[in-house]
């Protein structure tokens, strides 16, 4: 039982507590936070290395045997997600320490707590503990969202918090029903028990499962539960929005995790229960996202809707729940997290260089660093809208390929491709407006705060990430295939968590 598994959760938590005690010295705080993020990134690499050795590892907190205590479970999926959050958060941290962190109180502790929540959600193997980490993640995100204040953020924040509070309530209802029927909270244990639920309890189990699905769908911004996203992310401070790029993925992760492990093939009365709901919703999400991209008049709104759109793509792939489509979904997850983060950072970099025009899609005089920023934006737009050669194209290709055997392939392909076109239109208009039309505008922008090229580095790193993701698509996909394989054969997960208990259960099944 390697203690590394708990590191991605504890490290940021302790760092945050320490940062609270250091609140009087902002510089020291910054350094500690940066160091903690770097350490977190390293530890997530270590954790990743552990996972790709192939075995599912479980970590029994408090040394209590599963399912009675809480376990953390490290498999390829959780390790990948943790690594992803490590990479994203490092870039975001680098962006934030260029000034954003001073715009309000407690940026760094909140940031670290946020990371704790995200990693906790990825690693936990317990449904209720997942709820707790959702809450940690959410409340930290509320704090971060409001960082810096302003009426817009307050209004958006209220809606974001209110809708998510409803989500949290629903989570508890769902967990309650599932516990009430199965008597357990451990996911692996649940996986074993749902298939044995009495016929008379099937309706309850199914209700619980679907309510749980809705909770995750809310986090994943699946239409019609997506309302909070465009408003909240657009109002959020840029580095926070960039970090949020992975928050929607937590919802997607939870859907993938729970609805393959517990309510997957061996889900008994609730086997694959989410699938028929995900697909139409995901297609609608694609449509709404793309329409939103087309309609946006502010860059950050456009990016928000693009994120909604990308969630639709991702969930379309998830909806089939087979190894191939899950592989595609996972690849798309990596891609859309990196590129979502990059675009939010870019929109901030652009906004802060354009004076009163900020990121409104209106022509302004040429901004500082226009050439490099324009190049980065071009690449990011290519990646997001799924044009080659960056990872968006590969992801789209994989999704189309993985879904072609589906009964709904016609729908999926039509919607994916049609909405891709809308997104291309939206991004091309935004890009030409910001970087081309500005060259036709006379006058100069009031000298902005020193616009250093170095400030573009974090965004550039994320874009480079999408390039590497594309270039290394082969090996990455091999890893993701193995990940998906682990997901569709939950036995290894159950065995790793329950150990001898699973053996015993299997014995009774045979009898």
């Amino acid at each position, binding site marked *: 039982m390697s203690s590394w598994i*708990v590191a991605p959760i504890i490290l940021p*938590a*302790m760092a945050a*507590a320490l940062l*609270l005690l250091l609140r009087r010295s902002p510089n020291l705080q910054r350094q500690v936070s940066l160091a903690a993020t770097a350490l977190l990134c390293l530890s997530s690499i270590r954790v990743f290395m552990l996972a790709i050795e192939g075995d599912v590892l479980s*970590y*029994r*907190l*408090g*040394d*209590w045997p599963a*399912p*009675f*205590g*809480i376990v953390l479970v490290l498999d390829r999926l959780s390790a990948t997600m943790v690594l992803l959050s490590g990479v994203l958060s490092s870039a975001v941290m680098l962006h934030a320490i260029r000034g954003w962190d001073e715009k*309000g*109180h*407690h940026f760094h502790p*909140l940031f670290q*707590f946020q990371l*704790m929540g995200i990693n906790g959600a990825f690693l936990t193997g317990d449904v*209720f503990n997942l709820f707790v980490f959702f809450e*940690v993640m959410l*409340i930290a995100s509320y*704090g971060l969202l409001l960082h810096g204040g302003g009426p817009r953020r307050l209004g958006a924040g209220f*809606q974001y918090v*209110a*809708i998510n509070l409803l989500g949290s309530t629903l989570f508890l209802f769902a967990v309650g029903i599932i516990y009430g029927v*199965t008597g*357990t909270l451990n996911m692996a*244990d649940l996986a074993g028990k749902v298939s044995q639920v009495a016929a008379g309890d099937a*309706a*309850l*189990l*199914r209700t619980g499962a679907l309510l749980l699905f809705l909770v995750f769908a809310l986090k994943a911004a699946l239409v019609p539960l997506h*309302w*909070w996203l*465009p408003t909240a992310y657009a109002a959020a401070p840029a580095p926070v929005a960039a970090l949020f790029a992975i928050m929607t993925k937590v919802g997607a992760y939870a859907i993938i995790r729970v609805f393959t492990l517990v309510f997957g093939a061996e889900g008994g009365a*609730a086997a694959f229960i989410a699938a028929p*709901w995900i697909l139409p919703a995901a297609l609608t999400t694609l449509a709404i996202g793309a*329409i939103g991209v*087309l*309609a*946006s008049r502010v860059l950050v709104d456009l990016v928000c809707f693009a994120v909604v759109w990308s969630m639709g793509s991702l969930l379309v792939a998830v909806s089939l729940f087979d190894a191939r489509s899950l592989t595609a979904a996972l690849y798309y997850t990596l891609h859309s997290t990196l590129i979502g983060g990059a675009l939010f950072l870019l929109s901030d970099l652009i906004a802060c260089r354009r004076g009163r025009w900020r990121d409104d899609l209106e022509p302004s005089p040429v901004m500082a660093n226009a050439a490099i920023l324009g190049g980065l934006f071009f690449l990011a737009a*290519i990646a997001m809208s799924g*044009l*080659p050669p960056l990872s968006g*194209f*590969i992801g789209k*290709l994989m999704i*189309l*390929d993985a879904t*072609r055997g589906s009964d709904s392939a016609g729908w999926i392909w039509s919607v994916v*491709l049609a909405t*891709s*076109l809308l997104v291309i239109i939206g991004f091309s208009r935004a890009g030409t407006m910001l970087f081309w*039309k500005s060259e*036709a505008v006379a006058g100069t922008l009031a000298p902005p705060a020193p616009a250093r090229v170095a400030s573009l580095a974090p965004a550039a790193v994320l874009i480079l990430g999408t390039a590497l993701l594309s270039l290394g*698509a*082969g090996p990455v996909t091999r890893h993701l295939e193995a990940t998906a394989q682990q997901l569709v054969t939950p036995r290894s997960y159950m065995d790793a968590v329950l150990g001898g208990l699973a053996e015993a259960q299997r014995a009774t099944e045979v009898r």
Partner: protein
Amino acid sequence: MPTVWSNRNVTLNIVLLPILPLLAAIFPPLAIRSGRTLCAVAAAVPTVAALLILAAAAPAVYRGEIVQATYEWLPQFGLSYSIFLDGLGFFFAAMILGIGLLIIIYSRFYLSQDDPMGRFYAYLLLFQGAMVGVVVSDNILLMVVFWELTSLSSFLLIGYWRALPEGRQGARMALVVTGGGGLLLLAGLLLLGQIAGSYELTEILQRGDVIKASPLYLPMLLLVLGGAFTKSAQFPFHFWLPHAMAAPTPVSAYLHSATMVKAGVFLMARLWPALAGTEAWFLIVSMTGLITMLVGAWIALFKDDLKAILAYSTVSHLGLMTMLLGLGTPMAAVVAVFHILNHATFKAALFMSAGIVDHEAGTRDIRRLGGLLHLMPISATLALVAAGSMAGLPLLNGFLSKEMMLEEIVHTPYAGNPWIMPILATVGALLSVAYSARLAIKTYLGPVRADYPHHPHDPPVGLWLPVAVLVVPVIAIGLLPALIAGPVVERTALAVVGGQALPSYYLALWHGFTPALMMSAVAFIGGAALLMAFKPLDRLRLATPRLEAKRVFDRVLDGATGGAKALVAALHTESLPRYFATIVVAITVVGTAGFMTGSHAAGTRAHLPVNGPALVIWATLLATSLAVMVLHPNRLLTLILTSLVGLGVSIAFIQFSAPDLALTQISVEVVMTILLLLALNLLPRTTPRETGWIRRMWDGVIASVAGFGLAGLAYAVMTRDFQPISEYHLAQSKPGGGGTNVVNVILVDFRGFDTFGEIIVLCIAALAIYALLDSSLKGAAARRLASMRQGEEAADAHPLMLVVVTRVLLPLAMTVGAFIFLRGHNQPGGGFIAGLVVAIALLMQAMASGYIWTAERLRLNAHTMLGLGVLLAGLTGLGSLLFGRPFLTSTFGYVHLPVIGEFELASAMAFDTGVFFAVVGTVLLSLAQIARVEARAERKPVPQGPSDIRLVGSARAVSQPTIAHSKES
């Protein structure tokens, strides 16, 4: 990255064909600092290098071999970097690179000093690499990659002059149409791969029969053609090409005549063995081509801008090529290949000539030109030759391929009618003659004018030499077709038809008096006649309504954008009630569906008997809930009712054996009440009724249905038996966790990780609240606060009796807190409740004696408490790592001390202490922040505590108030 080379005909070099220009794209921007010529050289070198690679592969290709290399990319999904060269690929690659080199030279002289040349060459090289990639891809998915890259790079090139609105619009339009087509192509090729069982062209082309027999053939064909037609500007997608002419002329010459627009034609040629030869193919492709040919030519005839004429003529010629490929016969394929070659030469030459005219005369409007032959004889001559070829004049290469085309058409019935195609093709040729002649005459012939914007003369050799280089083959092929073009056409056509034998044909100037020659003659005469009647014809055209595709496109796009905006505005109203309603309805619907689709049996668990107090509590909860729905506009009353519900719920917890819960609920309740009261003081006191009764009824229905569902679920679960894992917790609590209060042991031990997360939630809430309220209220907010209705206010802020009693209560409450904390592991209580008790006691102080007075006396800053709390809980958990046990592993033991006796020490207690501090810190920090809002806005001075009544005769100055009514002082 592991590399797997195909074992067939491995040739490393051809892999570089697309990559070389792509990677080299970074050099021109770097080289521009060393001068424009060096910049051009930086662009030319990779092009030349690629040409050399191609030349090296030529012998093999012309031996009929296929040169191939494969590099793994995404094997799991069929995407590989596999490249192959056969006759067709070679032909196109050579054309792309060759004309590319000329364009690079031409651009060096064409671009002005102000144009950022480095960027231009970078884009050009990107395009060149992508285009070469399209034609040498073996893997069809790789081809899509390059295909879309050509769209992207052409987007950059068309928009090169960024300040030009036409450039931006043209670029976007091109991207939308060709990029959109690329999406169709992607879908089509994915389908094709699925049908053929491979994504490698070399495999696919072998399986034409399988493909054509597949039920997916037609949809696949439509998708692929969608890609091809958009790229090659076929009707009705032809409109983007003329607008792409906003690009610098070299770009138009290169992309929009010689190369990119041919990509669609290339694709049809490339897939010819797999797709062509079916009825569907013929009907769709040939007719689309024919219509495009006519439409393009017709529009070209009436354009006055040189480049526009050329653009529409290109559309027309692309139609011609498409039509030829659509015929589906090998001979037509030969002709198509031949015409592609010819068109590339004369059209690129014409574009460059147009550029020269523009450059020299300062306009491209043929109404302002004429007589240039006298002023710039060299370039005019070159242009006239090229124009002649375009018109199909004998002795030039355009004539040959046009003749061969007409010859093919003569034998082609369309849908059973033998006349349609020949007639339409003749009309096309006629129009072609007409616009070519018009262009030549109006630009170059006639008298010299006095009113050119600039005075034209022949340009530097760098500009006209590339034109000359292209005009050479125009004439050479025209005169000696078999010698010059024969091998190329044959090798290329062989590749197109893939394995089939080519029919016997010969490329020659004179074929005798064939029907085709007759049609040509008709075309020339008709063309001349048309020019004579140009003016009345133009008037007629202007008088009739025209459907302009660009306007339609703009309308559609504007409509879509407008619709999108309207839709988003209608959906995303940012109205929380609407969002909530949608979400609640969604939850109800999905939850109900889940229940209805599963089998359900009523539970068999015995019900508990109802007793009187329970009924009272139940009735209270019900009545209060209903009352709140009606009375909620009165906010203070709502608060009181809410407290009542909290009270009822905690009694219910007591009734049903959950003392810990009752304690927690009731203490949280009071903190919430205080919090809400603090907030309510600064919020409106009432909620106005803003909804009509229909809306309220509707909301009531939603709420009732959802509530009913939840009640049903609760009832269903409660009335059935189950076997929870908590049997284990009950059994292990004492022996394993060292405590008899199982709930507490679960909280600090079995599920201590939950609790760890929970205190962090609290901590974050406090931090967020602190951050939210700590910034001072400025501007409007401060004014609003100051003007807030101040109701009647009592004179004493700190009533004496309250001050004294709370003073006594504080140590008592702390004693109780200590008690609840210490016994929590075994009896109801624990760190959380203890923390709340202590926090409430301190709040009581603050209520009685004032915030500042209380805060000043607090030994530990609330922030520090929070930090320490989390740190302590975390460190306790980490402590177990030192002993090689997992995080949060607890330990306990019994310590025996003299006098005091035996007592238990558990590590869980240290953890619980962390919880305690976190709770106290949270409550104090957050409530204090709200309490201080008013003070921050300086709405009124803070009364100095602790009591407002100054008692005379008292010597105790410290504790007694310093002023009676601080407001006035």
